[in-house]
């Protein structure tokens, strides 16, 4: 039994080393691409070629984000990554998540409300909860047009803690509310922003499952906003 544990730990360590090496190997060829394209763009006079370069530069940035997200997902597959879990004050983490998107929200004249109760606590690692709110709040801001509202609230029942992020954004149709958690799925053509990898909600749902919880997306329909709710069992 002990030998099996040692074997499993060794395999997990090898997997981590593989991930670190893969990350390095993916980022290395991307580096001269990102470093040199602006240089070529600057020297290029032909407006047609400049347009092509601009297009390629945004693809390179998209690749950078994609690599980062894939590495995050790969790390999340490792069972023991909840080892650093600790008790976290939920309202503070939500506040931090909102802070990260303050600039975009201000640009779009959004109002973001943090209605999470001050004494609600959750058991998670800091980096996981950060990814959770970064993605959920980021999506809410991204897919809500000017002047909209994003509200984060939570509820505690006997055996579980529920956190909801509700927006007044472009909403989802019934099929999308299920498929939206699939890898690389983006709900419709209006959502193809190159700077988003399509993995955000997959990462969120993996994190939620790691802690024994579940996530669901609800929407009255297209144009009527969405609400994402994550539920965690209470310790």
């Amino acid at each position: 039994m002990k030998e099996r544990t040692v074997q499993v730990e060794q395999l997990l360590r090898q997997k981590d080393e593989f991930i670190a090496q893969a990350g390095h190997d993916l980022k290395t060829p991307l580096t001269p691409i990102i470093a040199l394209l602006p240089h070529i763009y600057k020297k290029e006079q032909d407006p047609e070629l400049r347009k092509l370069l601009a297009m390629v530069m945004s693809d390179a940035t998209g690749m950078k984000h994609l690599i980062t997200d894939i590495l995050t997902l790969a790390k999340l597959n490792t069972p023991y990554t909840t080892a650093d879990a600790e008790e976290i004050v939920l309202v503070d983490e939500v506040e931090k998540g909102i802070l990260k998107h303050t600039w975009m929200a201000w640009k779009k004249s959004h109002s973001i409300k943090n209605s999470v109760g001050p004494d609600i606590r959750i058991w998670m690692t800091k980096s996981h909860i950060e990814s959770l709110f970064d993605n959920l709040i980021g999506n809410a801001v991204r897919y809500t047009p000017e002047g909209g509202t994003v509200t984060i609230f939570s509820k505690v029942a006997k055996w579980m803690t529920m956190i909801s992020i509700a927006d007044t954004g472009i909403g989802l149709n019934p099929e999308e509310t299920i498929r939206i958690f699939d890898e690389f799925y983006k709900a419709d053509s209006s959502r193809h922003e190159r700077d988003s990898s399509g993995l955000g909600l997959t990462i969120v749902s993996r994190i939620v499952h790691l802690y024994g919880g579940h996530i669901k997306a609800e929407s009255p329909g297209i144009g009527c906003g969405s609400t994402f709710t994550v539920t965690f069992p209470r310790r």
Partner: protein
Amino acid sequence: MGPPGNDTTSGGSSDAMERVMIVDDDLHILVAVKTVLNEAGFPVDIAESGDECISLLKAGWTGIILLDIMMPVMDGWDTIHAINREGVGGNVLIAMLTAKESPDRKMIGLQEYVFDYITKPFEPAELVNKVQLYSKYIRR
């Protein structure tokens, strides 16, 4: 494509730009960094390994070193240890330029020798700004 040559030493004048050494085993990184920094007016010398870096330093090289971490045989940290052992680190400023998101425990004991930590891929404008900042510190 062979490695780019080193820039010839210009006469030391007070408005000469600081020399930069890029230490990396990847040819394309060497070309990319040299292109970006040459464009901004910095003379750039290249070293494909920790050993080549030490050789240049022993020959009297001074300036700003951009040092990769993951290199075969001698990694970035081994290189800093060697610089200290050989006593050639008196007039250099070292910044790591690496694909590693965060350093591992091999960096313990070396914190004071590492002025900055830049992750790849980097935005060229960001690299130029940083080298301009480092110049203020290395200039005497």
